[in-house]
């Protein structure tokens, strides 16, 4: 126990770096996934081709390989070395952004066609159509997957320790060498990651509730609990 209390400040410092990289990576990934996701739903063949190529390339390369490329290989090409943190945020954002783009594309395509036709009938401009009708509905659909991607990105951020950014994993490695408490050093880091993940999960759940409520979709908590068994009963009754 003294190990945990003594080393808590060091771990918190590491967690701060992890958090910073996660938030930075998420911001980049979000912008990328919106841009390429919307491009992927357009009618123009060129726009869709751009989106597909982006997604296939950056989904294909592992974040670690991408980060190594940005950090070790790219300086040889352009003669300027990125800060490790920047390379990490870029690599994670580009990689997770590709997954996010697929998510956005799927969510927009899942909005009922009639909604789109209604906006045309009401003479909305394309921008209004997206902003006022399509995106609010797609948003509720894409949030759960975005929540998972945030966790994935946070977990992926552990690779930055390999280019000597002092995040949680790096701190754990250092504590292992300094104190020799192998088990405790890594256990502490794992617990910190778990707490961070639970916080992010909580936040996405809140965002999901808000998005659904704005669409007038949210059944209240107790009502939802009652609805599930009754529906299961219907399904069972139907089959027997």
């Amino acid at each position, binding site marked *: 126990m003294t190990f945990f209390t003594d080393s808590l400040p060091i771990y918190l410092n590491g967690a701060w770096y992890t958090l910073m990289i996660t938030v930075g990576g998420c911001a980049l990934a979000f912008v990328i996934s919106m841009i390429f996701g919307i491009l992927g739903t357009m009618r123009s063949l060129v726009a869709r081709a751009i989106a597909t190529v982006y997604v296939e390339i950056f989904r294909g390369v592992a974040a670690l*390989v*991408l980060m190594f490329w940005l950090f070790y290989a790219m300086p040889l090409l352009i003669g300027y070395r990125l800060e490790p943190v920047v390379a990490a945020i870029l690599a994670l954002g580009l990689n997770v952004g590709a997954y996010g783009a697929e998510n956005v594309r799927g969510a927009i395509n899942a909005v009922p066609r009639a909604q789109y036709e209604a906006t045309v009938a009401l003479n909305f401009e394309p921008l209004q159509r997206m902003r006022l009708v399509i995106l609010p509905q797609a948003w509720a659909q894409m949030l759960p997957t975005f929540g998972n991607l945030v966790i994935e990105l946070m977990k992926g951020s552990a690779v930055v320790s390999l280019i000597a950014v002092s995040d949680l994993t790096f701190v754990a490695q250092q504590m292992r060498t300094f104190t020799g408490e192998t088990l405790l050093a890594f256990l502490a880091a794992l617990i910190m990651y778990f707490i961070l993940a639970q916080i992010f999960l909580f936040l996405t759940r809140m965002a999901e509730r808000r998005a659904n409520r704005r669409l007038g979709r949210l059944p209240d908590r107790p009502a939802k609990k009652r609805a599930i068994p009754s529906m299961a009963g219907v399904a069972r009754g139907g089959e027997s």
Partner: protein
Amino acid sequence: MDWDFIVEAMPALLAGLRYTVLATVMGYALALVLGLVVAMVRKGAPPTVAKTVFWIMEFIRCTPLLVQLFFVFYVLPSAGIALTPLTAGVIALGVHYAAYTAEVYRSGLDGVPKGQWEAARALSLPGVRTWTSVILPQAIRRVIPALGNYLIAMFKDTPLLFAITVPELLFEANRLGGENFKYLETISAVGVLFIVVSVLSAIGIRFLERRYAAV
């Protein structure tokens, strides 16, 4: 770009790719088996056991694979279990992905209509046969594409084994790059290899989806 060097480095990179594939295949086999066991325990065991297993899996799913790799690689030997880097990597990959495949299996198991369980009980099939000849064949068939996705995801996570000195693709690329100061060529080659494999496997998954589309 020094193309001759890429050609020169190819044999070493392919030797690294062999380790990458080996780790993926063994880790995936472990994840498939362990995930199924976890899903079955969560379905069949008493609530306290099922709940404990759920939280362990939740913990594994919410923490980075890299730290888990370090954990297996450094902690198990200090507990007296000697491991080669590759074995440690396979164990960590397998256990980490078991947490995901367990969820996939669970969705498959939940998709099996309750009437199937009741029919098996009515026919007084023993528990083992209920699982092996009634429930699992129906449950697994519809989750094959989803399981395939995790094979690709795991393949893309194998570069992490680099951190525990498994001589896989990225390790070899980094070594060759360092020895000859040709990082650009070697790491770009690794990136391209990954894109090629991932595009090919995406096509494979689409084929699986058409073949085993959810009933």
